[in-house]
């Protein structure tokens, strides 16, 4: 594949307003943001956030997401418990949505991130086009993983009937939030321009 990158052309792109300037330009004339041809910590940052996300993926799935107290009986459930519950009660759609949003998506995102890191690190430029496509996907779906947290937060707020019925967030909720946020940060800190660099 033959192409010329901005570095080859001695140009720099403003990542905010998509204006193109000469290499020497440090600040965007339009939006006053800092201009960088490449983010040299991008890989490290992405890798670091990915590792954080992977670490927290375990407590997020093992620990309890939600503790439902009904008449003094505490019933704690993990993400998987929730999916099993909905699946058993034949609410397949909800089960599917939760499964996809809470388990599939974070794992998918992490897999993609690792893939991106791999292609960048070992300059597999032939995969760059493909990788960019995946990057766009994870960037798009990244925020949807928060749906689980929103559901829990909403439940906590809505079901507050004292001793009768009460819901509190479990430690998994925090872990899960960290997973989602770190994958998003990992995605954000990844400089896609690196994919296209041949050296």
């Amino acid at each position: 594949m033959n192409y010329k990158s901005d570095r080859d052309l001695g140009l720099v792109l403003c990542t905010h307003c998509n204006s193109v300037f000469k290499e020497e330009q440090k600040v965007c004339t339009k939006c006053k943001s800092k201009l960088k041809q490449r983010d040299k910590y991008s890989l490290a940052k992405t890798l670091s956030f990915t590792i954080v996300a992977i670490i927290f993926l375990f407590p997020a799935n093992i620990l309890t997401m939600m503790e439902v107290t009904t008449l003094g009986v505490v019933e704690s459930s993990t993400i998987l418990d929730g999916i099993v519950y909905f699946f058993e009660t034949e609410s397949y759609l909800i089960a599917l949505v939760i499964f996809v949003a809470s388990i599939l998506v974070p794992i998918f995102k992490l897999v993609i991130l690792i893939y991106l890191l791999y292609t960048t690190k070992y300059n597999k430029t032939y995969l760059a086009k493909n990788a960019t496509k995946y990057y766009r996907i994870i960037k798009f779906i990244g925020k949807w993983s928060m749906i689980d947290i929103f559901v829990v937060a909403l439940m906590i707020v809505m079901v507050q009937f004292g001793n009768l019925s009460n819901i509190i967030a479990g430690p998994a909720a925090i872990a899960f939030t960290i997973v989602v946020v770190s994958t998003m940060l990992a995605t954000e800190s990844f400089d896609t321009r690196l994919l296209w660099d041949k050296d």
Partner: protein
Amino acid sequence: MDEKIEHVSVKKSKKIVFLIWLLPFIALLISTSMLYKHFEKQGEEIEIYFDNAEGFVVDKTPLKYKGIKIGIVSSIEVDEKNINRFLVRIAVDKKALNLVAKKGTKFWKVEPKATLTEISGLNTIFSGIYIEAMPSAQNIEQIKDLEEQHTFNAVSEKPINYLQDGLFLDLKSSNGTLEVGAPILYKSFLVGKIVKKNLKDNNIFYTIFIEEEYKDLVKEDSSFWNISAIDLKASLSGIKFKVNTLASLIAGGIAFDSNSLKEPLKDTNKIFNLYSSKEDIDYLADYIVLKTNVEHGLEKEFSKVLYNGIEIGYVHDLSFVIEDKQSFIFIKIKKEFASLLEQNPYFELKKPTISLEKLDELSNVIKGTYINLTKRSTKKSQIKDIYTLHNEPIKRKTLEIVLKSDDTLKVSNGSAVFFKDIKVGQVKNKKLHSKSDELRVEVEIFKEYSYLVNDSSIFYIQSPVEINASLENISFKTAPLSGFINSSIAFETKNLKAKRTVNRFYLFPSYEKMLEQKYFLQKGKRYTLSLDNANSVLKSNSIYYKGIEAGKVVSKKYNEETKKVDAQIFVFEEYAKYINESTKFYSISGFDVDFSLEKVNIKTQSLNTLVKGGISFISLDEKAKEVKSFHTFEFYKSLDEILKEERFNENGLRVVVLAKSKSSLKENSPIFYRQLQIGVVEKYNLAKDGTSVELQLYIDEKFKHLVRENSIFYNATAFGMEISLLGVKVTTETLETLLAGGISLVTPTEYKEKAKPMMRFPLYDDVEEEWLQWNPKFKKL
């Protein structure tokens, strides 16, 4: 400079890289700590075998200790060896593991339970059942020392001593009507409950729990009884209705009472007896068996055993042997009367009968047939296994006496005879004397009281109520209640030491008559008073001597011969000695008004005699001859009459004056000489020819020499009024005579011979002035 910048930039980049790589480490740290916390909680599994795993849900049914979740059921499976058993595995929180995974820990299922006495586990209706754990020891140190154990058998129900300090006691009972959870009451205050009930050796054993703070109320001698829900007692005397606590109304309960002075119970293993009712405590535990072959009509539980009219027991059970027609009666006797059994008891069957005569046994009619117990001796005797129930009353040794009476009596056969309100005998028979109309009452006096009867005994009829009202007091006398409907006989014995020589006594028809008799039985004498008319003297009027009661009027009777009323009087001996021939009896009834111009003197005796009247006597001459009993005395209307009579003795002079009219003169009108009374008008009557009024005058002995043949009597009432030129001259005797009337005597200075008795003189109406000038000097007598 570039180098410098380069250097700074490198330094900066190193710092950023470090920070970037620090992040995963922090994340790792947090994550592991979270997971560690979680897994630490997870703990270990223990195995519990349940006979019934109904309601257990894997991963849901919790294990709790005092309401706190310490674990969760992780699996349930049927036991491999016994299909009626379930193996429940429970994941116990690691921290709680040391508490429950120890030897002796009890596990049981808590599920909603509603019984008459309690509703528990209500929360499990919504939350589902759970498993409760209780370690065998109460404090941490003890628990720590226990062996570890991971496999348990669940107990079927909550252990009785669950989490509670208090006293656990076993009670033995013959029936099992009480339910677990029924209350234990002390003075109607809830202090505990029945926690367990089981059947052992044909007895029901209840385990009761008494709360820690009340356990001192149980003493060594405490007695426990079953409180029936409703305690209804109805008898003639009223209805008693008692309900204990509402809970005991349905499920019953146990009450207990103790001697508060005793020490609290020490031996908690002591088994107490549970009585079936509070009354049962008072009864001897053993039955007394009575044997009879008569038709007894006794009722189980209702028929009573009486001793002297006091309920001392009841018929507990009855049985009948067909072969020899023997009835066996099982009776229960109160503990306090147990000693009666040692005194040769005699059991008698008493059947009530209704008759108009025997209305006084009305209460027995309602009581129904009962057994009467009497002790035959005070000596100790062996307690027998079986006693005979007699049909006829015990033959008592009695003293038989006969009472005579003139009146019809309201006593009947069986009527009681009382001595100081104690029944000492009864009427055996009542019949008419074979020859006269005299009523004879045969009475038997119980042997032990026979000493009360002797010659000084007085028998009388005791009627239900006697009211004795007098001015002095009002007294009610009532016979004992049993004699209320029917009359009874009572007697009094004045002197217990007197001998008994007769067995016939007079029966007085009333208490009052008896009292009267008793009065006249005192030492004294009887006399007769001759009255013109009996109005002023009443029977039972008292006789007074100087104001002190000295006797009574016994009776009055009309005397054909003298045409007068003879009143018999009774005078105590101590006063009888003042009675002699000179004694005069006079009425002190009413009041005596002494009316003069000087003063008005109203004289009454006591208020009592004012209304009732009375008799008093006076002895004029202490040395006069004594009189015998039943001597007849004249009766005077008043003391004055006596005094007057005293004055009018034979020694005085009696003359007659003839007046044209009686004018204001009357008996007792005074005769004056120089305005000094010398005599009285004794009586007056019309002259036979009707021309004048003859006034008989009595002149006292001392003054009779003043009356001479030529003496002149004039009416002192009259007063002269002379009207002359000089004025008006009024002549009169004293003012007193002006009002009361009177006669004045004048004798001329030249007096003649003494007047002869019954000499006649004219009575002048007017006084002549010349008469007043007369001034005779009498020679000494």
